[in-house]
């Protein structure tokens, strides 16, 4: 712990010396990540039609101490959420007297790969749904329980638990199902649309300027493979729609509702932009 404090202090010292700023940061770190012996692909070759050649996990843009926290499951504060999710798995709720466990008895096996392949086409609602919405769907249809409120702690914990079962697996969407391609198109349009009084698009920050420092933040490619992520600034797990809304709010724009068509389209497109990166949930970010 002591070395960490010293490290943090020296990073601060770096920041206060303007001459060092430009040279100290830029490219993503050259580092490898394995968690619990599981190799994590923090770089990947971009899929066809992608504006980048190489994809980088947001992990590579964080300071060494933040990276170290994610490397060690015992130190990763996001693992509390995962453990809460594991406990919620067997909690009976709703009129049907069931828990998640009633239908999925072995989550470690049954949920493997699930978190790597969402958003997925949902034929019933005729739109892509993410893990959060799939959990709500199970609660309403199979358990007779209320859907969670957006960002309820249980929603974040269960999502983190499910995604964690795919730790290390490459993100891969099936865009051939239903109208996924149409939603991808809509998400892409959003990604390049400038919003707010500051007139900024996602691409301005995460495509044109990834690698640069904006204030104290090292701009990454804005990948979603680590969500829900544990943010040190907020001392909590942060959902992907919460993050999207935060970035949109920072452009001084009104932001869309969580799980709205706009944000589901954006999640579909941005998830595709990280194809091949490993699921890192729960990632640790600043």
């Amino acid at each position, binding site marked *: 712990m002591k070395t960490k404090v010293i490290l943090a202090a020296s990073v601060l010292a770096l*920041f*206060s010396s*303007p*001459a060092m*700023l*430009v040279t100290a*940061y830029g490219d993503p770190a050259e580092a490898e990540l394995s968690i619990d012996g599981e190799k994590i692909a923090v770089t990947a070759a971009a899929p066809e039609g992608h504006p980048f050649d190489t994809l980088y996990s947001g992990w590579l843009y964080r300071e060494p101490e933040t990276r170290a926290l994610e490397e060690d499951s015992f130190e990763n504060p996001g693992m509390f959420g995962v453990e809460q999710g594991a406990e919620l798995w067997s909690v009976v709720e709703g009129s049907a007297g069931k828990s998640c466990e009633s239908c999925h008895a072995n989550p470690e096996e049954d949920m493997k790969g699930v978190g790597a392949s969402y958003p997925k086409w949902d034929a019933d609602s005729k739109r892509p749904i993410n893990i959060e919405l799939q959990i709500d769907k199970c609660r309403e249809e199979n358990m007779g329980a209320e859907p969670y409120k957006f960002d309820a702690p249980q929603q974040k914990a269960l999502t983190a638990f499910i995604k964690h079962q795919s730790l290390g697996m490459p993100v891969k969407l099936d865009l051939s199902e239903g109208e996924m391609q149409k939603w991808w198109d809509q998400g892409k349009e959003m990604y390049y*649309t*400038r*919003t*707010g*009084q*500051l*007139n*900024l*698009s996602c691409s*301005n*920050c995460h495509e*044109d*300027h990834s690698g*640069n*420092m*904006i*204030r*104290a933040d090292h*701009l990454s490619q804005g990948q979603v493979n680590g969500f829900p992520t544990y943010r040190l600034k907020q001392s909590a797990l942060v959902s992907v729609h919460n993050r999207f809304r935060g970035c949109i709010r920072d*452009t*001084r*724009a*009104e*932001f869309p509702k969580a799980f709205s068509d706009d944000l589901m389209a954006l999640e579909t497109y941005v998830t595709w932009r990280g194809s091949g990166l490993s699921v890192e949930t729960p990632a640790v970010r600043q």
Partner: protein
Amino acid sequence: MTSTLRALIVASGFGAVALAGSAMAQDVKPEAVAFSDSGGIETPVAAQAGSAEAGQKVLTDRKLGNCVACHQVSTLDAPFQGNVGPSLDGVGDRYEPDMLRAIVVNPKKALYDGTIMPGFYTLDVGKHVREDLVGKTILSAQQVEDVVAYLQTLKE
């Protein structure tokens, strides 16, 4: 009360307002700002001359220009300066005041359309602007002139 007296009272009572009003009226409205053929803005947008000292504050204040989020100025004692944009050291040598003004007012016109740098005195903004900011510019005309005055002091 005679009409002359009434006129006098009205005149003295509204004098200050009328004066401030006329000073305001001389600020160029964002939609009326004229770019020259070379892309600069020759006429100051505010009625009063800019103050470099006030401009320095606009550069570092997160709620105002927040310019150092993206730019670095070595002589400024502000933490966490960014490098999304070029360093502003020596920018007063590189550009004439009319270009500096145009870059701050609307870099999409002064530099190039795809730049990330926001326009600080333009209504040509993004979609879904936050409700309370609709029709408003990021900086006032006076703050733009203050920033332009400060940028001119940045010489090598």
